[in-house]
């Protein structure tokens, strides 16, 4: 009995301490993060944090370089540009060049086939094995400087005690302080979204409902932005999408949605999921008309197009947000835009999103990480820094078909974001390339062989 009495005071003390720290914790959270989020105000803490981090990273990189030089190691420098020099000559030009160098015959009587023709295909093939434009877009970009995350460093060997201590400190801060804070915020943001939009759903349709729904959406997305410590710079806000338009952007991760939606109100488009996502989606649509499709409806292109065009025709409804690439790309390039959203015929508002990879790579490699582990990785990086450019609106011009229009928009986005403009389909991440491309090459080459025969028969 005596022993039992001994424990009680300590228990009480512990409870009191835990209670106090929780209260303090939540008050700080409320005052410094949630209240500003409601009003869209910022204290500038995040920018200060970002600048401090940059200085530390530069120091760390210099330390590694010095350490490597001392030990006489060659530092592995990732290739942000190409490894090999590729000449942009066409099939015809190259094969003619090869033939010319080997032929001792008169150029006019060009031969049909030379054994040396194979050199062209051979070299192009091996060039693409050494370095190709497509496969490297589906894995995270490699960085030149080190940002104290082992996940993005290929030189991590023990260089100096100071560096390792710094890395350890960084690890501690990220996982023991930042991560719990961010997870709490994320939970707050999502639960507020679900609860408040469900409440608003009970109001009658009208201006009040729309206004409240916009405010609630903005507030919850802002909390989520702070949950990721996202530092976003918006450019050219005068071009922000308006009702009845379609907003298209390049896609790097699901976070793109949060980034865009915290600065403006959009109608989302997507497939209804099960689980927590589904709950969020279903409550969101109660407050304002988002466009969610069942799995079966997604395959029906006409149905999708009809619902989208019905939505844009109603000028009271919010602009639609679409990612025409259809899949996540690693933010170094923009891949083929699917033409569906460009056939609808309303004004298109292009948006370019470029992430700064120095603070944490935002690309979601869905074959490597599931959604939950991806979000945890995001929340345990330093920060997510990105720039958003709102480009001037574009519409389809006379005589331009949907594909050309899509390419025009894509080129504008690529130019603004400093990304490489590729014609390849993002679907190549998972699927095989179509045979038509190979057939094109074969046709080109056949023309070289057969074309000369026609000339011969003419002369």
């Amino acid at each position: 009995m005596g022993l039992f009495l001994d424990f009680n005071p300590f228990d009480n003390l512990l409870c009191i301490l835990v209670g106090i720290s929780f209260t303090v914790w939540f008050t700080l959270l409320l005052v410094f993060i949630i209240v500003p989020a409601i009003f869209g105000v910022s204290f500038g803490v995040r920018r200060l944090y970002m600048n401090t981090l940059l200085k530390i990273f530069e120091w760390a990189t210099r330390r590694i370089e010095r350490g490597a030089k001392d030990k006489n190691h060659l530092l592995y420098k990732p290739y942000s540009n190409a490894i090999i020099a590729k000449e942009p000559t066409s099939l015809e030009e190259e094969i003619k060049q090869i033939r010319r160098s080997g032929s001792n015959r008169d150029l006019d009587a060009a031969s049909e086939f030379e054994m040396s023709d194979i050199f062209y295909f051979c070299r192009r093939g091996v060039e693409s094995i050494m370095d190709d434009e497509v496969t490297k877009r589906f894995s995270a970009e490699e960085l030149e400087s080190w940002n104290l995350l082992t996940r993005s460093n290929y030189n991590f060997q023990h260089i100096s005690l100071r560096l390792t201590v710094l890395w350890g400190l960084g690890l501690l801060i990220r996982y023991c302080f930042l991560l719990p804070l961010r997870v709490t915020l994320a939970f707050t943001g999502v639960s507020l979204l679900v609860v408040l939009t469900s409440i608003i759903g009970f109001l009658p349709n009208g201006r009040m409902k729309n206004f409240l729904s916009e405010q609630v959406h903005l507030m919850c997305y802002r909390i989520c932005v702070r949950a990721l410590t996202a530092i976003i710079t918006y450019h050219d806000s005068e071009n922000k999408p308006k009702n009845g338009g379609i907003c298209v952007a390049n896609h790097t991760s699901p976070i793109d949605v949060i980034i865009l939606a915290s600065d403006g109100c959009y109608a989302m488009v997507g497939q209804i999921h099960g689980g927590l996502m589904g709950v969020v989606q279903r409550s969101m649509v109660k407050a304002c008309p988002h466009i969610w499709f069942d799995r079966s409806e997604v395959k029906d292109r006409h149905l999708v197009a009809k619902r989208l065009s019905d939505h844009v025709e109603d000028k009271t409804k919010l602009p639609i947000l679409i990612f025409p690439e259809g899949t996540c790309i690693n933010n170094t390039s923009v891949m083929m835009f699917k033409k569906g959203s460009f056939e609808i015929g309303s004004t298109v508002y292009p948006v370019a999103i470029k992430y700064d990879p120095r603070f944490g790579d935002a690309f979601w490699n869905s074959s490597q990480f599931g959604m939950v582990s991806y979000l945890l990785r995001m929340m345990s990086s330093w920060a997510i820094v990105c720039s958003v450019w709102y480009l001037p609106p574009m519409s389809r011009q006379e005589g331009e078909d949907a594909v050309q229009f899509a390419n025009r928009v894509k080129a504008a986005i690529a130019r603004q974001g400093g990304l490489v403009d590729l014609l390849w389909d993002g679907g190549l991440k998972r699927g095989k390339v179509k045979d038509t491309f190979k057939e094109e090459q074969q046709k080109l080459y056949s023309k070289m062989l057969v074309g000369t025969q026609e000339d011969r028969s003419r002369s």
Partner: protein
Amino acid sequence: MGSRASTLLREEEIEEIKKETGFSHSQITRLYSRFTSLDKGENGTLSREDFQRIPELAINPLGDRIINAFFPEGEDQVNFRGFMRTLAHFRPIEDNEKNKDAAASEPLNSRTNKLLFAFRLYDLDRDDKISRDELLQVLRMMVGVNISDDQLGSIADRTIQEADQNGDNSISFNEFIKVLEKVDVEQKMSIRFLH
């Protein structure tokens, strides 16, 4: 978690590859990074499927023949050494190498070895001869469905006629070299590195 960081290439291996292929240190590390990014199974070797995943290679009419060149007879996997050994054929010939003494073994990127690589693309059954049949098959790969069998057949006949010197109706490696003696092989079968 990224396994790339944990399978760094050892210094001794890099030195051995350097001696065998002539690539520089930084070129080897870059190509190693390329190798690991192609290796989706993360088991240190590449299979044919790993190569076929490269879209630009998949649309190359001779893509399958080139992929085949990486795999020794009867094997389905190629490791990094084998990968580098094959790629070494495409290293540009440096001037100081042209004057190497005859006693040293022939480097992988010599003119003869480059021609051998191309010869093996034609020689489907690896019997060191290009028969009419093999030539036809490779031609068919290059032109697809756009040329008739007859036309293709006459092209093949003409080519063999011009090249064949000992009358066995097929092209041996020496006859192949003779036909291409004036072609600038060094330039056309070389890939220049940027670093």
